[in-house]
């Protein structure tokens, strides 16, 4: 490797960690970013001439820190000279952890907790996490979420302004706050995963890059914060991910779980997911993600759809409904009940749930109802519900799937 390649490798692999530490040392996200880039630029120029320093990592952190202090001296509008010197002195005061080991894992946790702070809007949390923690460019985030680059850029700028102006602290939440704050981090990661696994709009069934990013982020989080709910989420995502290939056919059409070729499920991911969910449940992690992962693991365990232990699945849904009493969880439970006790029992539950306005606007509620009606041979009712579902979804593969089901019903009844 030549020097340039080494610098590029350092940037790829370590720039987020360096960045996280610089935010703590410099107290400002933008300043940390700019100073880090200064340091990398300087490395590109100096290292080929003077050789690579013994500790390239520490060199980059301390160079960036001094660059940051220079920037403050040059650019910051401060009211008095005293104050300026004071700020610069406070920042340049070398703390022991900087000289010994420049990167504290806690800095990376601080970074993710600040990006997922609940005082920021959900959209902003997602964009900021992808940008600052994962290091994606604004263009990449915009592409992934099918938004325009200026929209994402503005979202990130606003979020950073709020962090600065409202003084959102760069710290790991205290033990008492941790569960709620961690929930918000996990929610952001799961949103990113789901946008990659079943995009809310667009032509593809899945967008693997986003899901990969979410999984990578969770693995990293699990190393820093080994608690059952994090391994529960990782298990859930790995188990979903194991079915990615089987979820769409060669023509890009959606294949429902019961019709998937189980031979195409990724055994490696399934095994790891199942192991993690057992571990999570065994260590008392009966949180929402671990429970959903447990349900997914039962599917992974079944040789066919009919071979599935629906009784156990309904049992896990009963627990999940208690923890997360939302209509969507109730809907999933109803589908599991239909598989265990027959379509008629499920239909009664779903019809009850469809009284709720929230579910009336949710295409999968109508699709689930249509499916049960179809299995009962109530073709007219099924067609009406498929049409409702079709009217409510923008995702093209799902639309084709629903249209196919309708065509099949129409041709069978004529």
């Amino acid at each position: 490797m030549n020097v340039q390649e080494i610098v590029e490798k350092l940037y790829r692999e370590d720039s987020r960690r360096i960045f996280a530490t610089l935010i703590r040392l410099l107290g400002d996200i933008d300043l940390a970013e700019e100073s880090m880039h200064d340091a990398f630029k300087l490395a590109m120029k100096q290292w080929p001439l003077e050789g690579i320093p013994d500790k390239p990592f520490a060199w980059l952190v301390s160079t960036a820190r001094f660059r940051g202090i220079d920037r403050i001296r040059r650019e910051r509008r401060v009211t008095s000279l005293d104050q300026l010197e004071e700020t610069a002195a406070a920042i340049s005061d070398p703390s022991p952890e900087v000289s010994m080991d420049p990167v504290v894992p806690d800095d990376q946790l601080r970074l993710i907790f600040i990006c997922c702070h609940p005082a920021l809007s959900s959209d902003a949390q997602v964009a900021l996490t992808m940008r600052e923690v994962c290091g994606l460019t604004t263009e990449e985030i915009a592409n992934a979420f099918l938004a325009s680059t200026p929209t994402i850029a503005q979202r990130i700028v606003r979020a950073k302004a709020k962090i600065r102006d409202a003084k959102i602290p760069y710290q790991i939440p205290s033990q008492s706050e941790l569960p709620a704050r961690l929930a918000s981090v996990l929610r952001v990661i799961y949103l990113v995963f789901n946008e990659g696994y079943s995009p809310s709009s667009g032509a593809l069934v899945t967008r693997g890059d986003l899901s990969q990013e979410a999984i990578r982020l969770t693995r990293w989080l699990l190393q820093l914060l080994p608690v059952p709910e994090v391994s529960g989420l990782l298990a859930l995502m790995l188990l979903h991910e194991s079915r990615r290939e089987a979820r769409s056919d060669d023509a890009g059409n959606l294949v429902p779980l019961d019709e998937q070729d189980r031979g195409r499920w990724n055994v490696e991911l399934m095994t790891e997911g199942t192991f993690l969910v057992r571990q999570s449940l065994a260590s008392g992690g009966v949180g929402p993600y671990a429970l959903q992962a447990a349900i997914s693991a039962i599917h992974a365990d079944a040789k066919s759809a009919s071979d599935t232990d629906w009784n156990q699945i309904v049992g896990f849904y009963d627990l999940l409904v208690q923890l997360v009493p939302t209509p969507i969880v109730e809907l999933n439970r109803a589908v599991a009940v239909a598989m265990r006790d027959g379509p008629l029992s499920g239909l009664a539950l779903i019809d009850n749930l469809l009284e709720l306005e929230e579910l009336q606007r949710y295409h999968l509620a109508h699709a689930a109802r249509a499916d049960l009606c179809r299995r009962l041979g109530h073709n007219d009712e099924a067609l009406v519900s498929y049409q409702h579902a079709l009217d409510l979804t923008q995702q093209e593969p799902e639309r084709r799937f629903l249209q196919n089901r309708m065509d099949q019903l129409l041709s069978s009844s004529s």
Partner: protein
Amino acid sequence: MNYLCLVYLSKDNWSSCPDSDCFAFAQKIQESGHMIAAQALQPIESATTVRVRNGQVSLTDGPFAETKEQLAGFYLIEAVDLNEAIYWASKIPPAKYGSIEVRPIRQLNV
């Protein structure tokens, strides 16, 4: 850093929160050293909105915007950061009936 915690209540809940609760909280936050000032407001019917346009003062009866929840009072508090401000805002008794907006105080740029 100073934060203004604005207490919003809907008309239905305007009198739901007992004054004694608010008084007890005010004493507690005063003792903690985080309080700068706090006041409860008269109902919105007593509000007058003042605007100056082209040098002319114009008055409107009522609050600036007729929203479902109206400004009912405020606390001006001191906190090290937003997390601490949110902690104290969540303890304000009417938070149970309405909502509290937490706004950082801006230093004038002079």
